[in-house]
């Protein structure tokens, strides 16, 4: 059941990202829903399971991006893993910790995507990167509560509570 939900959410998110979210840009910057969901998967299900989901959704996203295949998969897996590790010791997780972790790690994920892309011969790192990261972080703050709820639902958890399993 959990796998089916995760697949559904991954496909839906990538379709949403590449068809609708690219139309709703703020100062030319679009939200990065796949990275945000990967981060929140790490938060909801821990580093290991989050990394697997991150890799899957990233790979699906890769297929529709002009960047080389594997770059988004790498980014999403690392982001999910990092969030899982960083939050595994949280004693009293609240809704806003998920929001803050999700948004900040998504912004960081955008930076990681650019740097990894640079390593693989793409020209993604520029002064504009910081602006893109900032806007992606802000947009993620808006989306994070709903995305967090969605990921807890995927993992069969009470959407109003968070259990660290990392």
């Amino acid at each position, binding site marked *: 059941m959990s796998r089916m939900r995760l697949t559904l959410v991954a496909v839906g998110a990538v379709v949403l990202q590449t068809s609708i979210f690219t139309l709703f840009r703020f100062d030319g910057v679009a939200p990065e829903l796949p990275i945000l969901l990967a981060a929140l998967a790490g938060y909801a299900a*821990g580093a290991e399971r989050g990394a697997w989901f991150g*890799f899957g959704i990233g790979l699906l996203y890769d297929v529709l991006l002009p960047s080389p295949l594997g770059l988004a998969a790498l980014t999403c897996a690392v982001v999910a*893993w990092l969030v899982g590790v960083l939050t595994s010791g949280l004693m009293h997780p609240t809704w806003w910790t998920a929001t803050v972790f999700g948004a900040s790690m998504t912004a960081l994920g955008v930076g990681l995507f650019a740097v990894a892309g640079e390593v693989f011969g793409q020209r993604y790192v520029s002064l504009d990167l910081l602006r893109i990261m900032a806007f992606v972080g802000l947009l993620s703050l808006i989306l994070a509560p709903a995305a967090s709820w969605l990921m807890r639902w995927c993992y069969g958890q009470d959407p109003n509570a968070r259990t660290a399993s990392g």
Partner: protein
Amino acid sequence: MAVPRPGGRRRTTLVLLVLTAITLLTLDLRGFGPLESMQEATRSVLNPLRDGAGSAFDPVADAWNGVTDYDDLERENATLRAQLEELQGLSIAETAALSELEALNRELDLDFLGDGDRVIARVVGGSTGNFSPFTVEIDKGSSSGLAEGQPVITEAGLVGQLVQVSRSRSVVQLINDPEFTAAVRLSGSRDVGIGRGNGEDQRTFIVDQGIAIETEVTVGEAATTAGGRSRFPAGVPVGLVSSIAAADNQLERRVIITLGADVDNLEFVSVITVAPSESAEGEAPPEPSGTDTTLALPTTTDVAAGGAP
């Protein structure tokens, strides 16, 4: 009995996934065929869903862009009004010039841009991510005969080339992408130079290789694709020379061309489906200078930049 530590297992998972991603990246960058086929198959499944979602949200997106890009729209409106006035003044002279060019094309058998050689496509989206600002998506793909590398034009000139083609959609790399290069011929001197997109400025193209410093170049002269061994057919308009300076090496000229096509506001484009080698059949490779008769402009008028087909 030793019990595996959870932290160790977590790290193993991460290492495994990172190595898999790096392997995929390496294979993709080397153009591994089966990987391309799998990507194309996945795109064929996802693209209809994207089409449906995109169509449903188009009006809302237009409203959003109207609000967030209001200042840009106002500026663009003013520019377009000025351009319209200028174009109205030029239209009579251009009509006469086009007639002459069409006659020349017929005589030289250079009419590669016949209706049969083009596929008209609608621009259905901009870049899909935050790191590919110089791409757009069009609603035609391999099922319409499109293939990677084919040139994309509007009536105003060269727009870019196809870099990713799936069954029903394709991604166009725009001419203003700094990674985009093309051989261009200046109409005055007939010299051929290599140009590239100027990402900072949406409407210019920089030619800084191949035009010798002693070559006479004038502001306002036309630049077209050079053809020959280039992947683009000869004679597709690129734009007009707007400034000239010396290149960094002081041996060549750095020519700035203002693009004919407004790549920022594309609605419909044409893809030239004839292979460059076919279109350039019988044509000599571009010479650095001297006489050349490959000046040809698109002769059909079914597509206008930013307009309906």
